[in-house]
């Protein structure tokens, strides 16, 4: 079948998107809606004195002005954290309250102090400027490395040393011992800079409360609508779930930043309920820059011990991770279980120890951003491995090969808690070397030299953990929610299929990929399959889309629901075809009696199930009803995988540097990925391409720059924050190795983040390689022309 698993089916949703017929939150308007504007702190750290709302309230078109005082009076809860970390000393992490409007103090530039609700956006914004807040600024701590220092300003009284938690993983004694006998030790200090997610669609919401029925509806740009409903309903608003509907329509990108139950959504819901009305808010780009949860922001040091053959003996890592001013929903998870558990990489390093200190600063909160922890881990590991290769004189491909976990070692338990599923790391590397024409590199470098350019090649062999699972283990590690996914596969009477998934596409192409899975499983033409997501009132509870989980976990739930459909369909067909269910086989959409030409199409079976005239309906006599069936063909499944899955790859980047200016041009990029079985190769390539673009963005262009004195985000607009553009990227060469994941029925692994995770170190390693003649061994990110030029100046000197 050309539309089933493995087919390059064009995306069903694209016609809608590219003709401007998407339906995003800001496209939605509710009759009589008001508009909200937030009053935000201009200070990174200040005591709030009085909040004078009189002028604003009297302003034209203003309906209401609310502050932290009303939030407190209404006993509205703070924003919840979805993952708790137990510190090395056994204590829980320090988890300060995050009120939905600031109370007493503001802690970052952009912290919401009050909300104005008015008849128009302009009236709301005009009045917001009239809210008079008397602030008494207090010293702020901005930079990650400053937070733990003695005498640093304290963001929270209850978090001495600005520490939320001190956490470790691995066997310290074993790691220390590995270093004692080491032949060579490579050391590295690095900064993984803060990034701003910059989804194309800014965050937006409309909250609507029906005072008669007591129903609250929230339209929001959400990657996980059910989780938002659960977290906001149960922890913040005390709004029961059956009276709370969250609708997330088309979502224009998220990269993690739209997972969280943001304060603005809570404020809108609370105010709408309080006032009995509908209220809309859409962030402008400036607001997005300072209030969407940021990503990354680690300062680390690492050491790798090697023996004389270049085998890795041990790895030690020390990281300070910036949480920002408050703990965002999954902030604590990112630099712990999504980070330090990946330090084995693709290698057999026997002893690994990592220590992580998570600190508060007076900056925008940090949470998961495409890759979340795994880019930071991969950057650190693939940088230090490449550095070790340079120091020992071993070829960078070879040093990795000497340390690979071999295909026959799976399932492979690493020293940092994970058990890898499957992979052929050597074969994947070989494919990448061929794709990149590694052997021809020396000639290409000489060629570049003749045109006055410096050419370098860099490797990165990422591995990551996607589809976090199983729920029970995650719970032991601190998860405060489950990690399964749900599906309902509903045959309609005339044979078409509506699929409800608890995941929610925000650009990944679920409408197509999931339809392919269903088409493949049930033999229904793909155009007869519709995927429905994003509305808590029409789909069963689900956990949403993040961490590259939707296909491996959500797609697997669909498979399980299809299995149930087929099991029931077989019984229906057996009844109608007057055969035993054991004799019915399902082939190409038909139930047929083995060895005969008696068959029924699944659509006919569905019709029979909904028009049950010739059907094994219950008779009421238990003796006869053993094989009785309820009418209908509609099944649900919840899938909780036994383990994560582990996408991995081999990335090779070639750059050319203009020595006069320091400008880096990526001239070649090869990426071979093992994302298990592939449902739609075109969509996987798209995910890899986009992921690489974002990884290149971190390496060369992007960085959130704060003024350390004033706490202002200096790179707070598209004029100052550089996102990668099409002309910054070469044609990316991709390839795949497919080792099926044994932990889900589709044998798939996540593909949404591997590109981002793999690309960054490959680019940086290539730059350092190109600058080898200048004695450059490290470079900071983003490696802007000036950074590269300076490295050359210093190297030369």
């Amino acid at each position, binding site marked *: 079948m050309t539309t089933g698993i493995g087919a390059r089916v064009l995306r069903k949703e694209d016609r809608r998107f590219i003709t401007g017929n998407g339906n995003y939150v800001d496209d939605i308007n509710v009759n009589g809606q008001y508009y909200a504007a937030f009053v935000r702190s201009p200070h990174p750290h200040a005591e709030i004195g009085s909040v004078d709302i009189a002028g604003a309230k009297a302003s034209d078109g203003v309906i209401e002005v609310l502050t932290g005082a009303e939030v407190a009076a209404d006993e509205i809860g703070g924003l919840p954290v979805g993952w708790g970390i137990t510190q090395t000393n056994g204590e829980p992490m320090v988890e300060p309250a995050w009120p939905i409007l600031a109370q007493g103090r503001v802690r970052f530039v952009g912290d919401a102090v009050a909300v104005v609700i008015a008849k128009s956006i*302009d009236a709301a*914004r*005009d009045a917001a*400027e009239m809210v008079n807040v008397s602030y008494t600024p207090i010293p702020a701590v901005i930079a990650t490395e400053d937070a733990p220092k003695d005498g640093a300003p304290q963001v929270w009284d209850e978090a001495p040393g600005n520490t939320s938690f001190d956490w470790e993983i691995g066997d310290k004694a074993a790691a220390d011992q590995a270093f004692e006998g080491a032949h060579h030790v490579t050391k590295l200090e690095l900064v993984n800079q803060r990034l701003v997610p910059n989804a194309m669609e800014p965050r937006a919401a409309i909250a609507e409360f029906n005072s008669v029925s007591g129903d609250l509806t929230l339209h929001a740009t959400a990657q996980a609508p059910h989780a938002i409903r659960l977290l906001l309903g149960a922890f913040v608003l005390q709004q029961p779930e059956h009276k709370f509907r969250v609708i997330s329509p088309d979502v224009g990108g998220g990269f993690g930043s739209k997972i969280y139950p943001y304060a603005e959504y809570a404020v809108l819901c609370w105010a709408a309920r309080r006032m009995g009305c509908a209220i809309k808010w859409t962030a*402008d780009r*400036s607001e997005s820059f300072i209030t969407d949860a940021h990503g990354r922001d680690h300062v680390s040091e690492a050491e790798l011990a090697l023996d004389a053959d270049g085998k890795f003996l041990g790895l030690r890592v020390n990281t300070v991770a910036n949480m920002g001013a408050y703990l965002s929903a999954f902030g604590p998870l990112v630099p712990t279980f999504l980070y330090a558990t990946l330090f084995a990489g693709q290698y057999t390093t026997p002893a690994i120890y990592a220590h992580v200190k998570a600190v508060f600063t007076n900056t925008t909160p940090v949470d998961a951003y495409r890759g979340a922890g795994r880019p930071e881990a991969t950057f650190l590991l693939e940088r230090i491995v490449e550095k070790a290769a340079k120091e020992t004189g071993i070829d960078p491909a070879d040093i990795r090969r000497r340390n690979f976990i071999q295909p026959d070692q799976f399932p492979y338990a690493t020293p940092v808690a994970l058990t890898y599923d499957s992979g052929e790391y050597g074969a994947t590397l070989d494919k990448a070397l061929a794709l990149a024409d590694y052997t021809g590199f020396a000639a290409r470098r000489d060629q570049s030299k003749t045109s006055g350019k410096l050419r370098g090649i860099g490797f990165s062999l990422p591995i990551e953990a996607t589809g976090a699972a199983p729920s029970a283990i995650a719970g032991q590690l601190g998860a405060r929610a489950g990690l399964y996914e749900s599906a309902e596969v509903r045959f309609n009477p005339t044979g078409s299929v509506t699929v409800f998934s608890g995941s929610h596409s925000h650009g990944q192409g679920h409408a197509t990929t999931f339809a392919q899975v269903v088409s493949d499983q049930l033999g229904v033409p793909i155009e007869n399959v519709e995927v429905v997501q994003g509305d808590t009132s029409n789909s069963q509870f689900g956990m949403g889309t993040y961490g590259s989980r939707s296909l491996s976990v959500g797609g697997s739930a669909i498979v399980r629901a299809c299995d149930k459909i087929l099991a029931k369909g077989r019984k229906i067909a057996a009844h109608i075809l007057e055969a035993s269910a054991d004799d019915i086989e399902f082939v190409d959409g038909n139930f047929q009696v083995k060895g005969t030409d008696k068959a029924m199409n699944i659509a006919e079976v569905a019709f029979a199930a909904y028009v049950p005239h010739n059907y094994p309906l219950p008779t009421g006599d238990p003796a006869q009803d053993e094989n009785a069936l309820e009418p209908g063909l509609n099944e649900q499944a919840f899938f909780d995988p036994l383990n994560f899955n582990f996408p991995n790859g081999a990335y090779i980047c070639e750059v050319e540097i203009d020595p*006069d*200016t320091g400008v880096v041009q990526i001239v070649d990029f090869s990426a071979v990925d093992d994302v298990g079985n592939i449902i739609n190769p075109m969509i996987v390539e798209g995910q890899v391409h986009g992921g690489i673009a974002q990884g290149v963005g971190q390496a060369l*262009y992007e960085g959130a*720059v704060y003024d350390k004195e004033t706490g202002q985000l*200096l*790179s707070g607009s*598209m*004029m*100052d*924050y*550089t*996102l990668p553009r099409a002309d*910054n990227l070469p044609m990316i060469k991709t390839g795949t190795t497919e080792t099926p994941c044994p932990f889900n029925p589709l044998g798939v692994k996540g593909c949404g983040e591997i590109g981002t995770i793999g690309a960054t170190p490959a680019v940086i390693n290539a730059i350092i390689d190109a600058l080898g003649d200048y004695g450059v061994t490290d470079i900071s990110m983003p490696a*802007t*022309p*000036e950074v590269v*030029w*300076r490295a050359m100046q210093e190297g030369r000197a």
Partner: protein
Amino acid sequence: MYSFEYEKAGSVDAASQAIKSDDEAKLLAGGMTYIPTLKQRLASPTKVIDLAGLGDLSGISVSGGTVTIGAMTRHAAVANSAEVQSAIPALAKLAGGIGDPQVRNRGTIGGSISNNDPAADYPAALVGLGATVKTNEREIAADDFFTGQFETALNEGEIVTSVSFPVPEKAGYMKFPNPASRYAIVGVFAAKTGDGTRVAVTGAGEAGVFRVAEMESALGSNWSADAVAGVSVGQGDLNSDIHASAEYRAHLVTVMAKRAVAEAG
């Protein structure tokens, strides 16, 4: 945006009068700078007077060794003009390198020079070619027009109507763009004209566009990239921001000057 009145200018004089009679009224050309300013609530004019309908303000003509460009001429029109391309190719190239296609199809030369963003491209061409700015009141030599960062010699209510560029013997423009905005981190316009040699630098200077006398005299005696290779500008008056330090900008001025001269041929 704060609310304001919108008025379509009926003539240059009427627009000028309207501005003079209302301190808080403001002209609008392509809106590429002014509309974002309004959207970010950084300006609250009483009235915005749109020059877009004034046909006589846009257009390109070449005669007697002079290229004249109307104030409302869009960057894209200059970039794509066959006349400009043949008379002063460096000027067409400069216009074609401004921002992105959307910006080039809206932004105007009059708006650009009146705004005098220290990172804008056109000021380098005006000063580099020794152009003349024509307004509804007078003619102003480019050297006198740009008076400092976002400052010009324009009086209240004075409106740029056109810019005249003398056609040079040869000229080159080389820009090191800001990767985010595409404005110039450093842009150098080098020209050999009937009046002598000119080198104008934009993007780098705190006070906006400036000339580099030492490069001009070096090129005067030896028009070659090598002639400027050894000349560096002091860092003292250069911009330093999150995109580039003064030191790096100073370095780029020399590199871009070399390349501009090489390009001019």
